[in-house]
């Protein structure tokens, strides 16, 4: 085991002193992501480019120090938490757009680039990048690759997996290589496909080649206002049964609406039981026809009102409410625990009732946001972590809700990943053999257990309690062993 001093010296040799953080106060702000887990690293490094990244990884491997990659720290499954401490490799110094190729409709970007900045830059060429997580103002393309991120507009267009065609990666072994390239649909084993969604357990992408799509000629956004979640759910099924694939179909329940409206003044009626945000895009004629049909389906299923955004500003406002809804819940409670379950769309109403019952049995308030079109639900349990025993209670309620999703024929994650928080649930869906094969895939990329440890698979050692590490932080001088 090296001392802290030795570790810092090695990291400094790899990236320069200005790009290594080691003071306890500086490390403390890297102890969290978007979840409720906490663990501070021993050091944070900011490499620029593949070579520096590789040097850092090799140094850590030599010293036997765990590595955790980190983008913007907005993740919702604990993927960027340094569970076994060690070194965080942050991508904040790699945030350039290297190229936009409007003819071939692709862009080459660095992993630390915030998602929204790519679409903003592509807009100049009439193009956009499709995956649009609600955190897109902040979250990075590299983080999106790791989590195979989705977003409201993935209903029609698919998730990150469908939009990344090539990657320059530094593997967990510290080797630089390309997976896929600038031409889609490469032959042979799809290692690019294996890497996207690997939750930072196989390596770090240092360049990402993404597909860009032309901005739609016409967009209609409408807001269906309902008294109950059931009515809104039935509308979702009806719209899909009618043969439409809206660009997005998002639902929010009463508690979420209240918070979003209070925080963002987005024009949602605060007394509604549910709102359904439906966006249709394409050529002007067909879009108008579809919008009329979607509107009719809303009323057919009991909508009390349907509002149609009259211009870009109104559309933006409706989306602002949706994209800020989760953060807005901070107005109601100091903490939330956001879940990410997927169920067959036909089971939405049934599972919703189960979710409410579970939350109620724990005496915990629960708000709900759904990517309703693909049966992806995000129950948010609201709590105050300062109440003794609360985090454990919340996690238990969360586990029961996830179980309910799986029992209904669903899965453990639509877009947030498994991370640390749900790794113990993996056996609900995968056999021992499945998990052993995944473990072997890690080995192929050189991860023997120290590269983003304790994430995704229910294996590995030293992943128990993430104890409160303050005492350790304070006591750890430069000569303490790490």
């Amino acid at each position, binding site marked *: 085991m090296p001392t802290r001093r030795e570790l810092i010296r090695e990291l400094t040799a790899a990236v320069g002193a200005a790009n290594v*953080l080691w*003071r*306890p*106060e*500086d490390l*403390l*702000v*890297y102890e*969290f*992501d*978007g979840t409720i887990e906490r663990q501070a690293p021993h050091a944070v490094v*900011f490499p620029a480019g593949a070579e520096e990244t590789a040097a850092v990884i090799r140094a850590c491997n030599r010293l036997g120090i765990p590595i955790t990659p980190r983008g*913007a*720290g*907005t993740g919702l499954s604990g993927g960027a938490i340094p569970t076994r401490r060690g070194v965080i490799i*942050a991508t*904040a*110094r790699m*945030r350039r757009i290297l190229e936009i190729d409007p003819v071939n409709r692709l862009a080459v970007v660095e992993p*630390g680039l*915030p998602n*929204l*900045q790519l679409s903003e830059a592509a807009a100049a060429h009439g193009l956009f990048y499709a995956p649009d997580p609600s*955190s897109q*103002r*902040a*979250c990075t393309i590299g983080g999106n690759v790791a989590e195979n991120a989705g977003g409201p507009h993935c209903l029609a267009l698919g998730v990150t997996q469908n939009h990344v065609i090539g990657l320059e990666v530094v593997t967990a072994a510290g080797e630089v290589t390309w997976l896929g390239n600038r031409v889609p649909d490469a032959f042979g084993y799809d290692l690019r496909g294996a890497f996207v969604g690997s939750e930072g357990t196989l390596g770090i992408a240092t360049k990402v080649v993404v597909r860009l799509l032309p901005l739609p000629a016409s967009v209609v956004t409408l807001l269906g206002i309902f008294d109950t979640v059931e009515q809104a759910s039935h509308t979702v099924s009806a719209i899909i049964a009618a043969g439409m694939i809206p660009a997005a179909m998002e639902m929010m329940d009463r508690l979420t609406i209240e918070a*979003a409206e*209070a*925080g*963002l003044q987005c024009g949602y009626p605060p007394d509604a039981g549910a709102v359904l945000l439906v966006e249709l895009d394409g050529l002007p004629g067909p879009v108008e026809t579809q919008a009329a049909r979607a509107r009719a389906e809303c009323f057919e299923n009991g909508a009390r009102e349907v509002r149609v955004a009259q211009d870009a500003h109104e559309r933006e406002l409706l989306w602002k409410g949706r994209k*800020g*809804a*989760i*953060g*807005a*819940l*901070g*107005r109601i409670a*100091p*903490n*939330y625990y956001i879940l990410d379950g997927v169920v067959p769309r036909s089971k939405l109403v049934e599972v919703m009732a189960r979710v409410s019952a579970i939350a109620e049995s724990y005496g915990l308030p629960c708000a709900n946001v759904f990517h309703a079109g693909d049966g992806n639900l995000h129950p948010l349990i609201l709590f*105050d972590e*300062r109440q003794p025993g609360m985090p454990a209670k919340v996690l238990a309620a969360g586990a029961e809700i996830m179980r309910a999703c799986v029992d209904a024929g669903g899965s453990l994650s639509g877009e947030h990943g498994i991370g640390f928080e749900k790794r113990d649930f993996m056996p609900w869906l995968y056999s021992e053999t499945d998990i052993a094969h995944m473990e072997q895939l890690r080995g192929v990329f050189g991860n023997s257990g120290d590269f983003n440890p304790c994430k995704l698979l229910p294996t590995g050692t030293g992943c128990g309690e993430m104890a409160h590490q*303050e005492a350790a*932080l*304070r006591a750890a001088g430069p000569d303490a062993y790490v």
Partner: protein
Amino acid sequence: MASDSPWPRPADAPAAEDLSRCVHCGLCVNSCPTYAITGLEAESPRGRIHLMKAVAEGRIPLTATVQSHWELCLQCRACEAVCPSGVPYGRLMEKTRAQLDAAPPSGAQSRQMRRFLLRNVVARPRVLAAILAPVRWLANSAVRTAAVRSGILHLIPPLARGERMLPNRVGAPLRRGGDVPQPAAPRGEAILFTGCVMGELFGDVHRATARVLARAGIRTENAPLQVCCGALSAHDGDLEFARRLARQNIDALEGSEAPIVVNSAGCGAAMKEYGELLDGDRAYAERARAFSARVRDATEYVAGLGVETPAAFTGRVAYQDPCHLAHAQRIREQPRQLLRSTGCELVETNGADMCCGAAGIYSLVQPTMSAALRERKADQFRAARPDVVVTANPGCQLQYQAAVREAGIEARVMHVMELLDEAQARAETERQD
């Protein structure tokens, strides 16, 4: 018990309920200018709040490192405007600065010096006038022009820096109580807030504001007992003095229903928050809220008058949002609407609402970060090639003058009121012709 508090000045400690609002979702980080430059979590709003929480919970002591992260904050409040959870970041940071004011882990002397200057120079009209007189002379002098032309400044970097911070050209001051243009037939009345540095260096803006008001039939009162708004002191943590100034302004300007029109976005934002600042002051809390309710930014007030005074202006105009107008007061549309009404070509540059780095006394206290942000603006101006850069706050105006020089382009830097006044005057002349 006060002594149990981890904060050196518990009475002004960041409130637990404000801190707990932050759910570290991270939606703020890319709006933060210092995060944009550094990419460091500790230089982001989320990181700074996390450090506040850590100190409040006694997890870490208030160290010089923690202090440095808090002090690099511009207090532009861009994060506050995008926060879905409504974290009152400006208030949190002011209260945090109050703790540094009470017991700074490092740099105590420069803090004391700042406090002294803000209390005894900036807030004292006659002293300020005496101190700024040579600045005005230097800014307008032939010596400066010659020094710039000769290139000698490049040899002496501190002088070059000093020169860059000088205003382009300074008009006659317009101090409290001074005469202002009035309408022939008044239909309403407003109080013009003259401020401290604003009145000394931007008398032209005050006169332009009064002329715009006069054309709309508004009589302008220039109250003689008004004082500095106290924003600079509050941002630096000297809440005690900020409260004293707030009370003085309330005494000076209450007793009328007339709107208080402010053409300095920073002052306006601070005065709209007097109610909050004096919340714990039994004698003043109610009066402060009533006062704040009367405060209007000049652009907000003029746009709200609904008078379409003919105005004619040609050229490319790049409007840059002052942070305390766009983020603190949430006023974005009115200045643009007024500019568009002149017929000019309004160009939107990238990051028009990102801080220019002036940020009150920030450019003096954090020159490196301030320069980095100014350079970003210079890059934008070089790309957009505006004829006029327009803003609505004195500090920003000075910083944009420097940025325009740095960009090497020929562009004027004006306040919205100056451009509007010029455009209205031009329309008048054209009509007479």
